[in-house]
């Protein structure tokens, strides 16, 4: 991009932010056009971590391809695996034991909390406060330990297999989750004291990076980004999968459309996720954790599409099968990709600092965008 360095004919400054930059969280490369401190244009350059997961999956069978998807959105890897398993199960028309369903949902929600906690710390860091990051990681560590005990890994779990779970939960699972809930409920006021209520934080995020409801739909923004703009887009409510239909929880909606609204949606979602966990943790049904499946999985010819709600929004898995053991074509509709496309629209006219706040509240995970 050497030719783009410098200024353009209007005398605006063109700056490359990233791929190595403290606030792009990974290898996002933004070419921004600046008039003084005011952002005139943001152009994302992607592909620094593109591994062509879709192509890789074409050569992996239906048991193997799930693990690769952990590497897409690594902060909600369990939910990614879940989406893939759902799609395969839809094709095989498998009935999943209720124990497996409940545990899947429990771990989904734990993953969501962990992801939002990391986002909270990282957002505060983007805005210049370092300390919240450590407080967020303290509680996140408890989730990671639960994951480590049950799934054997802290980040890329690969705990879900088509038909259920890879193994049963650890005997300590319920106790630890309850301990986490107690701890997190007792610490969540710190989130308010340190960040939410802080005047500087509020002035940095309120009215910044506004995305109207129409634009949010048009740009395909989902998850907290869409809900912050008042778009009801929670897949768990609209197209319930697994046992979400039977659960009591609210879809957190904010009408503001600015960074602060997105922030509040995520904080609200953490509390809603805790409610879901509380409903389920004492009611894990007994029984098998895995349905009986054939050794070699073959999907019938046809198209299969499954949608789940990850921590970032709607993840779609679209499998086109030709009847073989591997997908003919697989497409991941990743939430971050659509959310990122709105970044240019949202940050025009703001300051550089606003761009960081907007980017922080979009909660971008670059491998999810690049895939």
């Amino acid at each position, binding site marked *: 991009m050497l030719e783009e360095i410098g200024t353009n004919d209007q005398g605006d400054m063109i700056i490359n932010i990233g791929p190595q930059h403290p606030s792009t969280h990974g290898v996002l490369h933004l070419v921004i056009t600046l008039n003084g401190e005011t952002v005139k244009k943001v152009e994302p350059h*992607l*592909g620094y971590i*593109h591994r*062509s997961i*879709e*192509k890789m999956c074409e*050569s992996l069978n239906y048991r193997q391809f799930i693990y690769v998807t952990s590497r897409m959105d690594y902060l909600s890897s369990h939910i990614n695996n879940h989406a893939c398993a759902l799609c395969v199960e839809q094709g095989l028309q498998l009935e999943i034991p209720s124990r497996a369903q409940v545990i899947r949902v429990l771990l989904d929600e734990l993953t969501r909390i962990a992801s939002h906690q990391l986002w909270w710390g990282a957002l505060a860091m983007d805005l210049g406060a370092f300390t919240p990051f450590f407080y967020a990681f303290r509680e996140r560590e408890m989730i990671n330990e639960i994951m480590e005990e049950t799934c054997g890994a802290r980040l890329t779990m690969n705990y879900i297999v088509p038909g259920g779970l890879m193994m049963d939960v650890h005997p300590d699972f319920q106790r630890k989750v309850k301990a986490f809930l107690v701890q997190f409920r007792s610490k969540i006021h710190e989130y308010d004291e340190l960040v939410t209520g802080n005047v500087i934080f509020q002035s940095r995020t309120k009215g910044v990076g506004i995305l109207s409801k129409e*634009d949010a*739909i*048009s*740009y*395909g923004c*989902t998850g907290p980004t869409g809900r912050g703009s008042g*778009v*009801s*887009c929670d897949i768990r409510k*609209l197209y319930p999968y697994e046992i979400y239909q039977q659960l009591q929880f609210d879809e957190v909606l904010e009408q503001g459309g600015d960074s602060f609204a997105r922030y509040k949606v995520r904080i609200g979602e953490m509390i809603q996720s805790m409610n879901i966990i509380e409903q389920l943790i004492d009611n894990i049904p007994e029984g098998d954790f895995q349905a009986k499946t054939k050794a070699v999985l073959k999907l019938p010819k*046809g*198209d299969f*599409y499954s*949608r789940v709600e990850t921590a970032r929004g*709607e993840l*779609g898995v*679209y499998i*086109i099968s030709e009847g073989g053991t591997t997908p*003919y*074509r697989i*497409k991941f*509709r990743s939430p971050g*990709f*659509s959310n*990122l*496309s*709105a970044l240019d*629209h949202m940050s025009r006219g703001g300051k550089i600092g606003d761009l960081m706040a907007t980017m922080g509240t979009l909660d971008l995970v670059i491998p999810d965008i*690049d895939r």
Partner: protein
Amino acid sequence: MTNEALKIKMEGLLPGAAFEEGTAWLTLQTVPEEFKAFATQLRSDPDLLFDYLFCLTAVDWKTHFTVVYHFSSTVYRHTLVVKVKLDKNDPAIDTVSELWRTAEFHEREAYDLMGISFTGHPDMRRLFMTADHVGYPLRKDYEDPVNMIKL
């Protein structure tokens, strides 16, 4: 709108469309010449209001390409899948990026990885690959001996 009602509506809008059987969502196939006018109708028809394009992708069928659009409406909550068959040698289709802004990135992705050109797209450049990259990685006949490891 239920799938049946949607199907009747679609038959009115697009008389030549072929419907796929046995799918959860109504799936129809059309040709690129008719697609743009049809898409405009989908977006603006007050009974349809497909305002949310949640997935756009392309498939290489070796003999031809299809571009698959997943439309949904945030008002009526119905879903429609539209498949457009494209020529193997010159896959081109009109852009829908002015109807659904999200298509801007998704079309660039399809262009980058599948080599489908979207006429009228405001910024038709490669998205992931470098500008001088040769070939389209998601095509079935793509070979890259350096970066693709065969096991």
